[in-house]
C-alpha cells in the first residue's frame, strides 16, 4: 500500500517534470513552427541561474522565480533577433543553426564553469508514508507544473496577449493586416518560451543539479513530448507528458531506469507511427 502510494506520487512527479521541461519548447514550436535544438541549453542556463546567485548568497526563491526566467528570457530574445529571425520558413536551417548555438553555449559554459556537476540542495524536508520516506520537493514540482499549465491556459484563453498569439498562430498574414506586427509577436513568443524553459530549469535544479552538458539528456525527451503531443500547445504537452510519464515510471519500477527511458523513446516512435499528427491531431482537437 505504501509502495503503491509512493509509486503513484513518482508517476505524477515524472509527468510534471516532463510537462515542465517541454512547455517552453511547445510554445515556440506551436506558435512559430521553429525547432529549437538549443532548448536543452536554455534549461541548463536556468539551472545555473539558480546555482550562481545561490553561491553569492541570493535567496533561492528569488533566483528561481525572478532571475532565471528573466535571464533566460533575455537570452531567448537575443537569439531570436540575431539568429532565428534570419531563418523563418527554413525549418531545417533553423534546426541546424539552433544546434550550432547549443554546441556554442555548452562550450562557453564549460569554459566558464568547467565540466563538473554542481548542485543546489533541495529545499523542504521529507515526508513519510508508512515506512517509506520521500522528498517534499516532489510535491512542489507537481504544484508548480500544475500552476504553470493553468497560467498558460488563462493567458492564451482570456487575455488580449493570448488572443493576439492565437491569431498570429492561425494566420500570420491576417494578423499582420489587422495591425499586429508578427515580428514583435515572434520575438515575444521566443522570449516567453525561453523564459518558461529557464524557469523549468531553475525549478528542476535542486533535483537534477547543474552541469554544462546537462541539456543533452533532456532535449530528446522534451522533443518527443512536444511532437508526440501535436499542434495544441497545452493539451498536447499535458497529454503526451501523461502518456510518456506513465510508460517511463512503470517500466522503471519493474526493471531499471534505463529500460524505462528506452521504453519511453520506443513508445514515442510507435505513437508517431499510429498518430503522425501527435495525440492532439486525433484527440482533444479543440484543445489549446
Amino acid at each position, binding site marked *: 500500500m505504501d509502495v503503491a502510494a509512493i509509486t503513484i506520487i513518482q508517476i505524477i512527479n515524472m509527468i510534471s517534470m516532463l510537462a515542465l521541461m517541454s512547455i517552453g519548447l511547445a510554445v515556440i514550436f506551436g506558435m512559430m513552427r521553429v*525547432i529549437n535544438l538549443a532548448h536543452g541549453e536554455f534549461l541548463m542556463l536556468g539551472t545555473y541561474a539558480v546555482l550562481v546567485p545561490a553561491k553569492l548568497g541570493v535567496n533561492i526563491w528569488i533566483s528561481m522565480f525572478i532571475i532565471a526566467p528573466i535571464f533566460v528570457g533575455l537570452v531567448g530574445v537575443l537569439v531570436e533577433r540575431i*539568429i532565428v529571425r*534570419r*531563418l523563418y520558413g527554413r*525549418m*531545417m*536551417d533553423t*534546426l*541546424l*543553426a539552433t*544546434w*550550432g*548555438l*547549443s*554546441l*556554442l*553555449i*555548452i*562550450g*562557453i559554459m*564549460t*569554459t566558464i564553469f568547467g565540466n563538473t556537476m554542481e548542485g543546489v540542495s533541495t529545499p523542504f524536508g521529507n515526508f513519510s508514508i508508512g515506512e517509506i520516506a520521500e522528498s517534499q520537493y516532489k510535491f512542489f514540482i507537481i504544484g508548480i507544473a500544475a500552476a504553470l499549465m493553468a497560467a498558460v491556459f488563462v493567458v492564451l484563453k482570456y487575455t488580449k496577449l493570448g488572443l493576439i498569439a492565437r491569431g498570429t498562430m492561425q494566420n500570420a498574414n491576417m494578423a499582420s493586416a489587422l495591425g499586429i506586427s508578427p515580428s514583435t509577436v515572434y520575438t515575444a513568443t521566443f522570449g516567453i518560451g525561453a523564459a518558461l524553459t529557464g524557469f523549468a530549469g531553475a525549478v528542476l535544479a535542486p533535483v537534477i543539479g547543474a552541469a554544462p552538458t546537462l541539456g*543533452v539528456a533532456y*532535449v*530528446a525527451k522534451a*522533443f*518527443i513530448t512536444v*511532437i508526440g503531443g501535436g499542434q495544441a500547445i497545452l493539451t498536447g504537452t499535458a497529454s503526451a507528458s501523461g502518456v510518456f510519464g506513465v510508460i517511463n515510471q512503470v517500466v522503471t519500477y519493474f526493471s*531499471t531506469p*534505463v*529500460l524505462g*527511458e*528506452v521504453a519511453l*523513446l*520506443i513508445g*514515442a*516512435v510507435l505513437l*508517431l*507511427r499510429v498518430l*503522425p499528427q501527435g495525440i492532439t491531431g486525433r484527440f482533444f482537437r479543440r484543445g489549446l
Partner: protein
Amino acid sequence: MSLFQTRWSGPLMVLVIAALLLTLIPAFAPAYVALQLTLYFSFGILGLSLAWVWGYGGIFSFGQAAFFGLGGYSYAVASINLSGSTVAILIGLAVPTAFAVLLGYFMFYGRLSGVYLAVITLVVTLAIHKFLGHTAGFEYRIGTAHLGGYNGMPALPPINVPGDVSKFLWPEDMYYATGIMLLAVYFGLRWLLTTAFGRRVIAVRENELRAELLGYDTRLYKLATFALGAFIAGLGGILFANWNSFIDPHVFELGFGAQIIIWVVVGGLGTLIGPILGAMLLGFAAVELGTQQTIDPNVILGAILLVFVLIVPQGVVPSVRTVMAWWKQVRANKRALAAAQVR
C-alpha cells in the same frame, strides 16, 4: 582531349588525383598520417551516406550514426564469434540495412516527413545509445562476444583475406582497403545518379506529389534510398571498427551524429565530394582541437555550424562552383569585349 570533355571528365580527374594521393602519401608522410587517414576515409564513407540520403533523397536523417554504429557492432560481434572476417563483414552490412528497412517502413509508410523524420531518427539513435550503455553486465553476451556497455568492445580480430584466416590485413593494408572503398562508394553513387533509379530518387526529393501522380510509389523509393544510405554507413562503421579494433557506444551519441551533419552542411548539400572533404578536414580539425587546451572544442564546432548556416548555407563546394562560374563568365565577357575592340 575529347576524353576531358565528356561528362565523366570531372569524376575521371577526381579518380586520377585520388589514386595518386592514395599511393604517394605513405611514401612521403609519416606512418602516423596514413593511420589517421584510414580513419578519415571511414568518416568520408559515413559523410557520403548522409550526402546521399539527405542531399539526393531529401530525407534528413539523424540516424546515419546509428547505422554506422550498428555496422561496427554487428561486425564486431560476428567477427569475434566466427573465424574469419568475410561472413562478419556481410553481417555487418546486412544488419544496419535490415534495420533501416524496418525503421523506414515505419516512417515512410506512416507518411512521416521533414522534422518528424529528424526527430524519430534522433530518438532511435539515442535509444540504441541508452541500451548499449546498459550492456556492461556479463549476461549481455552474443555467443562469445561481450557487448561491454560504455567500455565498448576492444581487441577485435583484424580483417583477413577472404578464405584465408591466417592472412590478415595490417594497418597499412587497411589504409589502402579503406581508401579504395571510399572511392568505390563515391563512384558507385555517381553512377547510380545517372541511372533511371537515381533520377527518380531526385524527382521524389524535388516534388513528391508530382512523382506520385506520375505513378511512382514514392514510399518505396524513399525506403530504398534510406536503406542504401544505411548500407553505406554500415560499411563505414565496419571499417571504423577495424581501424583500431574497437567500437564503443560513443558513435551513437548526439555529438557524433552532429558531426556528420556538420560535414555535409560545410562541404555542401547536394554534392558528393563536399561531404567527403568536410568529413576528412573537420575530422582532422576535431582531433587537432583536442591538442590545444585554450578553447573548448564545442565552441569552435558550434561557431562553424552557425556561420555556415547563416552565411554560407550552400556549403563550401557549391559556393566554390558558383564563384568559379562567375569568374569564367567575367573572363569570357572580357575576352568578348577585347575581341570586339580589335574588330
